[in-house]
């Protein structure tokens, strides 16, 4: 065969390598046509094809006796939660669009993940957002990104009537040029009415519903999401524009449509638009597909078949509908003032054929389109990392401030301070199920018509993952689950949002491999499946990768939702206990990757670690004690360690607390060390003994560290007033992000 000719510029535009182009020619036995090249570019993009992560993702555990739909079989796995109810959930990134245009980028990120969930027949019942930015203090660009992203989530999410009940907002210089915006959606499926993203039989029609198609977002998947980017201005046309009102009516219309007999399948149009949605649907159905782009309603004139197939216009869905049901579908969508247009037909065969009216534009076998190459790797631990891990995180000694002033400074750090300025911009009450609101360890929703409830949390400390990707990922799973334990819920499923740098570099390859291994080990230890996930790679700017950030979303279940806990101390005289340790204070090694070292020393060094076996037992103890009605408050130790956990319980409870043990010389490690597997609880003093006996049964160390009460927060001989601590914590975020 003669060497295929295609210009480097064309390949660059669709982000395919020369070798990949040659592989396509080889698989087709001919050179691809113009449109075909676009289809391959989209489907073989990192975003759609998972070229660098597929071999790793297969390592994640996907088994549970609660699974109704296995991960990978559909857009997300589905978890049985009893009483005929099931949960679909997924997390997805919209990092690069948000860096280019924060408001629309974040808004359409919410829109996209919501469509993923209702495509499965699930009513979206919760949103969470996991956000990362550069340090905000005095940086107007970072503040612009933060306010744009939060504004976009607020604008879009509030309009569609889904409560936004949690997430994280976290700052570190590593995200300065490349913020992370990961949105998670949880959906409730009733009566096991799960909708598949497939056609059922040849002759099913492909129906496009929702918005008209425009030129927005072309090459979003292959460009923005699958490459590093420097020239932000040039990428603007690749960012989509959201219409939350359309999304809201689309949710209602689609959830009504699945009740029409003959509506066989549903799929969202996400990254790579019709190309990805329609072709994946055909592939999953094991059928061929014929599409006529001339039928697709447009919002602008003169669009080419290439543009129609690759447009990422938002708020569109595809249905697979039997001929007999088409009229009923049209009538339903008309009720909601929405278009429903037949644009194609499934039939037996192996090809996707694209027509533009009478003219056949392309005919391509589906198999090569949907089997992107895989690039397994096995990179060694980078030398710089070994050096960083062997660096003593305690080498700075104690800082030149008093422990009380240090506490105030820590409470005011935007990574620790209350995120109320963010979540008060999101409706977290709509649907009237919110039992524990955002601001604690995990939010809790009741499930109407049952006594059950769910808890949801997202977590990942990128600094720990940077210092040890395996231990960091284990800690992310552990903390997400620990947050559930602190409200009293049992973890039943995980979803992951993998955010990493350029997978073509050895450092990132090592981080990816190790993180997935860490997630795998932790998920197996907790006995929970990873039901869905998303990978966002090439998160770099100016040649520097972000911290490896595998964000974990965790779903917990309550058999009885009235048996839950919050983080707030309640009554004077209650005993404060530390679960997971038999001594009060943390050692110097636990400053590794700590917020304390970041705030006081601008440092991230040392070797983090976690004992997963202990972690599982600590969480079991906390959950059991909550169910037994012994616990008045529970809060895990994470960023800022024990002192911050105690202070937050006191501040939110509107009451003081005293930890009696005298502070050791290395008080910074004692107060702010971030040893894992620790939960601070408060119990009525008379119940402390009963708690100890459950702890002994579970072999979990426990130490009584103090007492609730008074108007101060005291550690040893160091005291701050409740008022000063509350001011630092409640206003720290706004001060750091507005000045």
């Amino acid at each position, binding site marked *: 065969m003669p060497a295929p000719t295609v210009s480097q510029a064309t390949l660059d535009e669709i982000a395919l390598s020369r070798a990949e182009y040659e592989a396509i020619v080889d698989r087709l036995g001919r050179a691809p046509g113009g449109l075909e090249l676009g289809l391959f570019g989209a489907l073989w993009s990192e975003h759609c094809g998972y070229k660098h992560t597929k071999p790793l993702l297969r390592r994640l555990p996907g088994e549970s006796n609660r699974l109704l739909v296995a991960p990978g079989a559909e857009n997300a796995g589905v978890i049985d939660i009893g009483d005929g109810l099931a949960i679909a959930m997924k997390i997805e990134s919209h990092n690069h669009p948000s860096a280019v245009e924060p408001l629309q980028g974040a808004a359409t990120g919410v829109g996209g993940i919501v469509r993923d969930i209702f495509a499965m027949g699930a009513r979206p019942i919760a949103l969470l957002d996991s956000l990362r930015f550069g340090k905000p203090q005095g940086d107007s660009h970072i503040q612009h990104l933060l306010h744009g992203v939060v504004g976009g989530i607020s604008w879009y999410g509030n309009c569609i009537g889904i409560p936004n009940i949690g997430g994280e907002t976290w700052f570190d210089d590593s995200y300065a040029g490349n913020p992370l915006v990961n949105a998670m959606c949880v959906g409730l499926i009733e009566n096991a009415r799960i909708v598949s993203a497939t056609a059922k039989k040849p002759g099913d029609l492909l129906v496009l519903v929702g918005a008209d198609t425009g030129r927005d977002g072309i090459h979003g998947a292959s460009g923005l999401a699958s490459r590093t980017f420097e020239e932000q201005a040039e990428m603007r046309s690749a960012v989509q524009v959201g219409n939350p009102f359309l999304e809201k009516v689309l949710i209602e219309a689609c959830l009504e449509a699945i009740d029409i007999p003959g509506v066989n399948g549903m799929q969202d149009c996400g990254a790579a638009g019709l190309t990805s949605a329609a072709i994946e649907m055909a592939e999953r159905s094991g059928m061929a597909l014929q599409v006529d782009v001339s039928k697709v309603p447009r919002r602008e004139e003169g669009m080419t078949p290439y543009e129609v197939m690759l447009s990422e216009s938002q708020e569109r869905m595809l249905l697979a509908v039997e001929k007999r049901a088409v009229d009923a579908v049209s009538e339903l969508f008309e009720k909601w003032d929405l278009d429903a247009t037949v644009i194609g037909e499934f039939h037996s065969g192996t090809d996707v054929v694209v027509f533009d009216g009478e003219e056949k534009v392309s005919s391509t076998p589906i198999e090569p389109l949907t089997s992107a190459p895989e690039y397994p790797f096995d990179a060694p631990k980078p030398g710089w990392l070994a050096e960083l891990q062997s660096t003593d995180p305690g080498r700075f000694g104690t800082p030149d401030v008093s422990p009380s002033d240090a506490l105030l400074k820590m409470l005011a750090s935007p990574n620790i301070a209350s995120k109320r300025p963010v979540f008060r911009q999101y409706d977290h009450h709509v649907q009237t199920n919110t039992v524990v609101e955002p601001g604690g360890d995990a939010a809790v929703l*009741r499930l109407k018509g049952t006594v059950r409830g769910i808890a949801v949390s997202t977590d990942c400390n990128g600094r720990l993952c940077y210092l040890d990707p395996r231990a960091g990922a284990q800690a992310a799973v552990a903390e997400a689950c620990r947050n559930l334990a602190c409200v009293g819920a049992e973890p039943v499923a995980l979803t992951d949002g993998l955010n990493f740098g350029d997978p073509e570099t050895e450092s990132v390859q090592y981080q990816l491999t190790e993180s997935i291994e860490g997630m795998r080990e932790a998920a197996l230890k907790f006995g929970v499946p990873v039901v869905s996930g998303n990978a966002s790679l090439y998160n770099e700017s100016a040649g520097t990768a972000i911290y490896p950030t595998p964000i974990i979303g965790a779903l917990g279940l309550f058999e009885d939702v009235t048996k839950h806990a919050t983080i707030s101390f309640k009554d004077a005289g209650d005993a404060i206990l530390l679960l997971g340790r038999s001594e009060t204070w943390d050692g110097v090694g636990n400053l590794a990757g700590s917020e304390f070292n970041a705030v006081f020393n601008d440092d991230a060094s040392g070797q983090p670690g976690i004992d997963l076996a202990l972690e599982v037992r600590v969480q079991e103890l906390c959950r059991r004690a909550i169910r037994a009605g012994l616990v008045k408050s529970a809060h895990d130790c994470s960023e800022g360690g024990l002192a911050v956990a105690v202070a937050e319980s006191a501040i939110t409870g509107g009451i003081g607390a005293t930890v009696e043990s005298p502070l050791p010389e290395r008080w910074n490690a004692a107060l702010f060390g971030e040893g894992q597997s620790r939960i601070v609880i408060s119990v009525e003093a008379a119940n402390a003994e009963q708690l100890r006996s459950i702890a002994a049964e579970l072999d979990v160390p426990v130490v009584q560290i103090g007492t609730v009460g008074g108007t101060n927060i005291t550690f040893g001989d160091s005291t701050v007033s409740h008022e000063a601590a509350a001011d630092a914590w409640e206003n720290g975020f706004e001060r750091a992000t507005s000045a």
Partner: protein
Amino acid sequence: MKFGVVVFPGTWSEHDTFYAVHDVLDQPARLIWHKETDISDCDAIVLPGGFSYGDYLRCGAIARFSPVMDSVKRFADSGGPVMGICNGFQVLCEAGLLPGALVRNEHLEFRCEWVNLRVERADTSFTNTASGGQLLRVPISHGEGNWQADDVTVRRVEDGGQVLLRYADASGNLSPDTNPNGSINSIAGIVNERGNVLGLMPHPEKACEELIGGTDGNVLFESMIRSTAATLAT
């Protein structure tokens, strides 16, 4: 008595409102699609919260042209009780059933939080199960809840006793700190001159059970039930 809960495209608190009156307070209720015109089976109408037509153009500006609104106006004109919650309040103002307008929150941000509402009058169809000065703890959820009107209208509304609810602190005091949106005189809810049409920005349907944070919102619905039952009995 039977509640009718109006659904515009983009409305999202219809199910929450339906749940509060039907499941919690055990009243007959039905959803009314905005293209319906016969609402004669209903004894009370609620325009719930959400973003009708995405709040595009101006909050409530498009919804007021929905076919159902003519029927709602006739229902109100005949003295039937009508409650507009949040977006419903905005629609009622746009439709001319209530005075003033809801503009963007003074600080320009959306706000979702619990507020204290001071009940200014306990002798109306919407507050007859409350006591004057009672505080109701109810959530708000809006970006445009800042009630504004010209001076003459404000005076007429105040002098006419049309203000039913104001944002207050936990002791019932008014201050700019406890006014979440910049609304004139901390106004959270007003009635028309006849007293049968209430618009309020807070969401009483979101405070209907202890498990989700409180039951104070029920006071308004229970008052409607009591007064409507009295009317129906005569």
